[in-house]
């Protein structure tokens, strides 16, 4: 059994002049929750479609579960996916939609009941899907992805439309699936969700790979600092000058100063403020979230590559 869930080498896909996936080479380990992150139009869905055999690459190679994407039938029964939005026949029940796919995959009827149970749709399983709420349709999409009991599960925005309780349940389900040895790739704009669930992160922008590695490694790029808020807002500018004189860079957001120092230096900041007779209302260490790091990373990439990427 290969140690990699996915391997790509120079994977490229062009649509006319547009390069949707640009020379992406990466290795995604087996097992765990993998976050696939990127702005809209960054090439996430195209990459997923290539891996699933729905779209052919213009160049490059890839392997899914150790099998080449040139022959997706060699891994199709071990992969389940929800791409972009749930797909279903609206005038059919959830059970019949699932049964149609189960028949095609050669799965027993009991598997349909199992996935309906997992996503908690059994009570409405025989109703037409057109009568479902957005969240219920999303659950059906997840059920369809789970149908083959996959080793590799790819979910595009799985929590889209779910209520907070549903989001927590999905997060728990993903972790259980990963704990059972499966690889779960989750594409999401809710970076806080990924931060809570992902072990490994792939960041894509303009079709190009910006980062692929453990979440902890990405988060090491997170800037730390201390937020300082003086009791009197009028003191904020004076405080900024005072800190600058000490060599501590800061930026002002409203009445709050974000000082870019190690949080261990919080006491020093307080002492400096006291020395200038400035009373602090708040002094709090702050670490960038995944969202901050992502924005910082994609913004930097955008400023260094402002041209619209075209095929050479």
């Amino acid at each position, binding site marked *: 059994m290969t140690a990699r869930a996915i391997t790509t080498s120079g994977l490229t896909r062009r649509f006319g002049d547009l390069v949707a996936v640009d020379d992406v080479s990466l290795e995604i380990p087996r097992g765990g929750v993998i976050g696939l992150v990127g702005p809209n139009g960054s090439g996430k869905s195209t990459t997923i479609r290539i891996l699933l055999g729905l779209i052919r690459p213009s160049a490059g190679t890839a392997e899914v579960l150790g099998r080449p994407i040139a022959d997706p039938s060699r891994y199709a029964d071990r992969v389940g996916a929800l791409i972009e939005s749930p797909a279903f026949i609206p005038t059919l029940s959830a059970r019949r939609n699932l049964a149609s796919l189960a028949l095609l995959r*050669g799965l027993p009827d009991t598997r349909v009941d199992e996935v309906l149970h*997992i996503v908690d749709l059994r009570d409405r399983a025989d109703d037409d899907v057109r009568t479902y709420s957005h969240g219920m349709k999303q659950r059906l999409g997840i059920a369809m992805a789970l149908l083959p009991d996959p080793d590799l599960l790819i979910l595009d925005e799985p929590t889209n439309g779910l209520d907070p309780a549903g989001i927590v349940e999905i997060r728990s389900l993903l972790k259980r699936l990963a704990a059972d040895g499966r690889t779960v790739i989750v594409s999401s704009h809710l970076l806080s969700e990924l931060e809570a669930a992902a072990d490994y992160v792939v960041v894509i922008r303009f079709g190009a790979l910006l980062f692929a590695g453990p979440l902890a490694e990405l988060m090491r790029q997170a800037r730390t600092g201390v937020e300082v808020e003086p009791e009197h807002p009028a003191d904020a500018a004076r405080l900024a000058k005072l800190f600058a004189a000490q060599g501590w860079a800061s930026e002002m957001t409203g009445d709050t100063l974000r000082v870019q120092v190690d949080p261990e230096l919080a006491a020093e900041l307080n002492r400096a403020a006291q020395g200038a007779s400035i009373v602090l209302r708040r002094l709090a260490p702050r670490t960038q979230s995944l969202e901050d790091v992502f924005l910082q990373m994609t913004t930097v990439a955008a400023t260094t590559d402002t041209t619209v990427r075209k095929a050479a």
Partner: protein
Amino acid sequence: MASSAISLDQPRTMRASTSPAIVRAVRSELARLTRRTFLGTGTLIVAALTLLATIATFYGAANASGEDGFGPAMMGAVLEAPGGIVVTVQGAATLLGIVVLAFAATAVAVDYSTGFIRLLVQAEPRRWRLIAGKAMALAGLTVGAAALATLVGVAASFVMAGLTGVSTAAWTSDLLGTVGATFVNLSLGLMVWGAIGFAIAVITRSTAAAIAGGIGYVLVIENLLGLLNQDLAQWLPGSAITALVAGGNATLGYGTALGLAAGYTLLGLIVSLAVFQRRDITA
């Protein structure tokens, strides 16, 4: 959502079916095609069109003026001949063909409009199996539609003959042979219509475009081509279907019509397969 995931606690022995992949593809298609709204509407339309064609033919024969040389005596003779029992079914063939074309086009295009096609290709990446499975499932339903139309047409013909005074004495001389041949020919003719709708829908990925294109071609473009060149027109799909359903006519013999129909059906399937096999699934 359920707190305990059944699948996670069970051995992963999923592939229980020993059916050949192509049989699974057909059964999967039938699970979707036989949905209430789709099948119910189709059944109703096929029965209603055949019934209307039968009523119109018998009342038309009874009320015709004869000025066009096809008066009551001549139409009555046609209806009272041994093959008169299936005249209305043959007459409804074009309308039924349009229904089958629309049905096939919708069956294909709805997979694109709903995005279901990406689930199908994920589940069965050997795309030719999906095409073959859908074509075989649709062929089965087409045979069902032809059987329904034949039954409704024959039954209604007996009723209408009684109401309009048309003699049915000759109908029973070879009832099974006549009705059976009409059923087979109608099935084959409708399959050509279906193949046209199927191919156009695979190419356009749109129900409306497939129906408009298919009907527009057979009813308008082919007639225009016929006006320009009659020799060419007799070889085109519409003429071949008409001749096939009639069991051969003055323009095309039965064998030729059958060969042409088979060729057009095969062509439609080959084009569908070639396009589907190569095209990206972006739905």
